[in-house]
């Protein structure tokens, strides 16, 4: 039967939201990557398209803040457990109205303190501006299935030895995709080699790119494997 002449949908640049660390980084840039460029494209070509999103980096203050909160909470679990057991602590005496008033007052102070603490975590004055352009990553992909690969890498990683954790699906019981090989190219960029087994279940697989020297998180890899094969 003859093929029907019909307009085709544009192939989407991606099929899911970005939920990874880039959202945390420079949110305004990540969410409005190049509004002017988009407007221009829209005006001149009438072809509004999805621009390529940039890579960002987490502000130092925010990173510190996360660590502080994490450690604070770990230590705070002890107090939470005590609270759960009903330890009264100080302030148990006095009339209810007095205690209520004090609690309200102290509670406000506490909350305000923590809020101000967070507000104080902005990068210090004079700190260098975060760069947004990451090194180039070339992807070599071997796959029978249709697959979409998305790599997010922080800037300033040139010359580093990077590794990738095994890519995991959203189903914790499903097998992992394995760890892709991450190599360096002569031009300073990176090369990610990924092979998708034929038997791999369709779905989304993701993993962390880490620095082999200090283990720090440097980016993410996400692979979406479709149900239909390329030649179906």
């Amino acid at each position, binding site marked *: 039967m003859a093929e029907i002449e019909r307009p085709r949908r544009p192939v989407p640049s*991606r099929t899911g939201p970005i939920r990874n660390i880039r959202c945390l980084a420079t949110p305004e840039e990540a969410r409005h990557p190049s509004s002017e460029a988009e407007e221009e494209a829209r005006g001149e070509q009438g072809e509004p398209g999805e621009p390529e999103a940039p890579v960002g980096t987490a502000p130092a203050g925010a990173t510190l803040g996360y660590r502080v909160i994490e450690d604070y909470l770990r230590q705070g679990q002890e*107090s939470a457990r005590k*609270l759960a057991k009903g330890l009264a602590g100080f302030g148990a005496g006095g009339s209810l109205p007095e205690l209520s008033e004090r609690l309200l007052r102290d509670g406000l102070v506490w909350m305000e303190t923590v809020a101000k603490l967070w507000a104080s975590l902005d990068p210090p004055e004079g700190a260098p501006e975060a760069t947004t352009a990451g090194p180039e990553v070339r992807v070599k992909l071997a796959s029978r299935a249709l697959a979409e690969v998305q790599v997010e890498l922080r800037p300033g990683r040139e010359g580093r030895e990077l590794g990738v954790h095994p890519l995991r699906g959203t189903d914790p019981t499903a097998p992992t995709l394995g760890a892709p090989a991450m190599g360096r190219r002569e031009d300073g960029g990176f090369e990610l080699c990924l092979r998708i087994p034929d038997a791999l279940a369709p779905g989304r697989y993701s993993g962390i790119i880490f620095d082999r020297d200090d283990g720090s998180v440097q980016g993410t890899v996400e692979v979406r494997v479709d149900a239909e094969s390329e030649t179906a």
Partner: protein
Amino acid sequence: MTPAPDPPIEVAIIGSGCAAVSAAFELTRPEQRGRYRVTIYQEGWRFGGKGASGRGPGRRIEEHGLHIWMGFYENAFLLLRECLAELDRDPTTHRFARFEDLFFPDPVIGVVDRRSDAGAANWLGYFPPGAGTPGDPDQPARAFSVGDYLVRLVQLVQALLLSAGRAEGASFEQVPSAEGASFEQAQSASESLEPGALLERIARLLRYGQLATLSSALHASQILQIALRQAGRIPRSPLLGLLDLIGRAAESQLAALVERDDELRRIHELVDLILAVVRGAVRFELVSHPEGFDAINDYEWREWLRMNGAQESSLNSSFVLSLYNLPFAYEGGDPARPRAAAGDALRCCVRAFLTYRGSFFWKMRTGMGDAVFEPFYAVLKQRGVHFRFFHRLTHVSLADPGRSPLGEPTFVESLDFEVQAETRSGGEYQPLLEVDGVHCWPSEPDWSQLWDGERMRREGRAFECFWDRRHVARRSIRVGEDFDMVVLGVGIGAIPHVASELVARDPRWAEMVREVKTTATQAFQLWLREPAGALGWPEAAVNVTGIDGAFETWADMSHLIPEERMAETPKSVAYFCASLPTSSDPPGPEETGYPAAQRERVRRHIVQYLDREIGRVWPRANPGGEFRWDLLIPGQGPDGGNAEARGALRLESQFWTANVSPSARYTLCLPGSARHRISPLDHAVDNLTIAGDWTACGLNVGCVEAAVMSGRLAAHALSGAPALSEITGYDHP
């Protein structure tokens, strides 16, 4: 508008709910230069889907349920405001010309709470105004980051503390502000300390092990803040110890008092829950997880909070239960089975509580159909969109796989419809009626426009009922002739019935219809002869949830009275809603008695509820265990019920609904289900995209905002616009 250089692309949009209308709005923007020519196919006589409303007897407003928009509905408000701007109606002649004419802020939520003495009390949570207005085009940078949310959680608790401190009878404006509290008074010489001296002070404080006085806690806080400003020069450990010290001081005081004071107990529960959220965010590495909050979507919301240290009393608090009530998060509608995916619940909570703008809630001054869908209908009509009312989709036919070039996805070849009615003129059905110069959607079709309309009216044709399959014709439209692309904007419940080929061919679609569950809902509206205050409700008009009985949520909607035209003006209007326990899979079209049986069930629920339960909020409405039925304003015309009816028969003059049709059911997000959703961006069928709050639209919760996001995604899938970065909240942890 400059015409598009090429022949326009014909788009068939099925459905006219929030998602479908948003897609139509995006595809027909002037910036698209007429590239897409849209036709909307809709069963029945009106727009709106689950957001539809109609004018009934006495021009009273009759809704599908309780519709209140939330202050984080950025996409929904943006599109509506753009729509209103494009219409540019004159506010001197049109009472709903502007956004502020249609919506007003409602910053209070009420929760019926269990008291420590086993009684019930009403707790009003006040949310202070958020900066800006939802949908502001010049919105400030929004940091949708976990870290930013942690900051805002703390600020929210501040606001709730203020609410709890409200003296009885005092207005919210009289509550003293937290600004200028004694924190500033705790300035000390520490400001100028060098790191070494600062460390010594911290160490001295830590040696105490406990902050014994308020002044010491204040001093410690000040030192902590200063020390953190020197981040990098002060080791982390003592800072964390100091933080812990301050936190412990506050918690120990809470624990001393919660058993004796309900207000403090609620504060304690919230603090406990917030700590559990933050602790869980750290434990599950949500701050940097590639999947964001999706990483915890296999957990049930309360189960996840519990495993992160939340106490049972907090988990069973009325506040937490209200988080299930408002989105009907009960599997099978069963109140004993509250279930929600933790990741999506957390995402929705942080969006709702921490990113609202202007007000936590926004209420409409008229029905949702008139406030939202009438402007969209008007602007779409202005843009040249065609409307095919009374068209019920029955089948989506896919092309044989061999018809597509090798490696290309399949496509929709034809769409089959049942034509439920045809107009006498042969032209487009005109769906609106006028109420004092404003166009509104009616609760019934205008039978006079329809062929055999009077007979259809007598027969009681229910065009929106899945089980009423009566029709006057069938129609099939074909790709390349009638359409090029399709936006499937029906509810998920309808998918197995209309897209069976897709479900059979693609296992992902089969999984989606199996795993993405819905629940039926029930709702009723009362027009009363007394205001809520006279019925014993002690507070101002609010939205209250957590009520015992079949309907856990009540909203005082008396602000709608001026917009209605009833012969006897009510003193108050009350809306109630809840999930309706039914099977997760409604019966097939052959079970024609099902909708009437469910409607009768809802009627019985209402009678029982008003007789036995309404006293929780209106203690003077059911003295002696029987509702004062004479409170209800009787029939408002030939279709409004018997004006002479007495007792529970008076209920016939009011409005209620059992939302049981597959497309009318509310979408749930159960643990483990979100990953089975398919995105509007999915490309498995080349000329088809999907739209609805049941799709993978970034916010997997049944609500207007999710539907609008999905509609915008659907438009992006077909046209590339709007850019994904313009869909607020799509890229989100």
